[in-house]
């Protein structure tokens, strides 16, 4: 075991899969010599050569099209979109093409693509470099969408994503890249896609969340514990498909739930989670299921980012509304 940051765990997962499967190809803008702008691919070109790890010309739509074509010729592409705010340039390849290939060819072809991309906010980037656009992906049938919140999860989930035979969008939160280290096995391991993880057990309230907000929610749970509330925190890890079983089991136990997302209220995953809970467990509920989210504006200008992004205080405030309903 080694202590790793999330970015190191991601590099490690890529290394494992490049080693394990000669069909795995890593490519994108600046991923070669430079090792990626966040160094997620640091050292990989040196270790595996330019045939396996390569810089592309600067064109996100080109990167997406390349992934489709390489899949057709039997490769397992792991392209990087440098910042997920650039996804609009490659939207057709993702939502219009690779998500539909298996379906429209009646299973003749499949798209074992893993699109990696940094997303989320809180680090004062220029515009289009911070955003929570995972909702666009999650509402596109044919894709799986994964958002790890810890180094350990990131490695296991990324290996699973690469081995998955369908297209996976793997979103790495900018602020979590280097925010903390934890023990990560050096060997290969997988974490099943579509399985949530109970990051903290509790009996009074369920918080369903993902990404950076897992950590704000855990912090909120600690605050609430001081006031005598026992809070369960579910890290979705995969936001499409949702692990409904884990969510419902928890809500049936606690009778109260809130959903926390960094994305705008109109744009994220939370509404879907709330709908699933009300459809399946309404008779277990002691209170309405509330959401914590960013306001419905375009991503904040950096100067206002600190207030715009949801934080643990917002979580505590909303949690109390539900706990005291």
């Amino acid at each position, binding site marked *: 075991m080694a202590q790793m940051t999330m970015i190191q765990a991601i590099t490690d997962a890529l290394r494992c899969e490049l080693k394990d499967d000669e069909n795995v190809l890593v490519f994108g803008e600046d991923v070669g010599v430079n090792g990626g702008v966040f160094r997620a691919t640091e050292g990989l070109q040196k270790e595996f050569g330019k045939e396996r790890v390569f810089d592309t010309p600067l064109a*996100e739509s080109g990167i997406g099209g390349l992934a489709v074509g390489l899949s057709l010729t039997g490769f397992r592409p792991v392209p990087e979109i440098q910042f997920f705010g650039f996804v609009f340039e490659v939207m057709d390849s993702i939502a219009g093409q690779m998500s539909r290939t298996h379906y429209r060819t009646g299973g003749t072809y499949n798209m074992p693509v893993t699109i990696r991309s940094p997303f989320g906010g809180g680090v004062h980037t220029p515009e289009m470099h911070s955003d929570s656009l995972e909702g666009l992906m999650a509402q596109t049938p044919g894709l799986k969408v994964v958002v790890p919140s810890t180094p350990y999860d990131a490695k296991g989930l990324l290996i699973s994503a690469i081995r998955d035979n369908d297209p996976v969008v793997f979103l790495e939160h900018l602020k979590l890249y280097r925010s903390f280290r934890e023990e990560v096995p050096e060997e290969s391991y997988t974490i099943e896609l579509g399985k949530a993880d109970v990051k903290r057990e509790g009996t009074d309230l369920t918080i369903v969340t993902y990404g950076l907000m897992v950590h704000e929610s855990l912090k909120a749970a600690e605050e609430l514990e001081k006031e005598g509330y026992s809070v369960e925190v579910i890290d979705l890890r995969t936001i499409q498909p949702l692990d409904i079983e884990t969510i419902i089991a928890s809500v049936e136990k606690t009778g109260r739930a809130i959903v926390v997302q960094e994305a705008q209220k109109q744009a994220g995953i939370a509404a879907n989670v709330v709908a699933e809970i009300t459809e399946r467990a309404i008779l277990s509920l002691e209170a309405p299921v509330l959401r914590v989210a960013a306001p419905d504006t375009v991503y904040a200008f950096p100067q206002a980012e600190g207030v715009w992004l949801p934080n643990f205080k917002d979580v505590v405030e909303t949690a109390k509304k539900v706990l005291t309903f």
Partner: protein
Amino acid sequence: MGKKKFDPTVTLREIEDKFEMFQILNEEGEVINPSEMPDLSDDELVELMSRMVYVRILDQRSISLNRQGRLGFYAPTAGQEASQLASQYALEKEDWILPGYRDVPQIVMHGLPLWKAFLFSRGHFIGNQIPEGVNVYPPQIIIGAQYIQAAGVALGLQKRGTKGVAVTYTGDGGSSQGDFYEGITFAGAAQSPAIFFIQNNQFAISTPRSVQSVGKTLAQKGIAAGIPSVLVDGMDALAVYKVTKDARERAINGGGPTLIETMTYRYGPHTMAGDDPTRYRTGDLDNEWAAKDPIVRFRKFLEEKGLWSKEKEEEVIERAKEEIKEAIKKADQAPKQKVSELIENMYRGELPVNLQEQLAIYKEKESK
């Protein structure tokens, strides 16, 4: 006489070889192409030099302000002064500029107050509130997106019968984007008044020019769109000015758009957000380009003509420092950006109900 064998590679080489780099001043500041000398008065030549010196100082100050945490996002410009400023100098007020994020100097010269440029860097929307009569779109973050928008502005100017052009800039990397080809194709097809610049500064972040295209030049990409295409020495202010001025003349007289590749170099990192050029560039290459420096070359030319002196340069440097200080002071006075303002700015029309509700929440938070 044997029939000549058809060979498309020969055609390709013939076309590529026709793209010679247009130059007026050599690296020593000597005029090597006198018949192409642009029609600029002594005062205008001095003004062009002053702008390049000014922006070099602005770059140095911006980098140090960024390091002190007093500026936010910043993409260094040193090395590209001739490419950026001599092209803008050939424009008129009615012309539109659609810049990339490194092209802040051009829009400042086109009328965006410097203090606003600083607020753009700091991530405040006042920085993107363009004063009336300044025909500028805020710096584009998505690589190449401005190209197709420039085709749109050019078509608009054409339909309105305005004697203006739409000018846009991207880099060597940007010329790989789909939007690049769409922009030159649309403007070419409509024969709209646009000037498309590729500032080929040799690296797209870390990715060398050679990875972007196997083509000998990037200028030749314009041939496929059927538009005049120029390769110019981007370290030569006179050459850049001349080809821009000619392109503008052509455009406003119905001759359609032009694609201009300026051969240049970014001395600094891609941006101030952690890029380390030593990972992908050699000191030798840096030195090779430093020898072509646009300011050094133009200084020699002007000194030879008796139009420039050390004192004159000092004067410009002092003025730049003073104006930068004033602009920072003014930027500091801008009120802190509030979330309620972001909400209020979402639509031109009435605020939708969800935002009305959220506005009340944030106003209450902000009042505490």
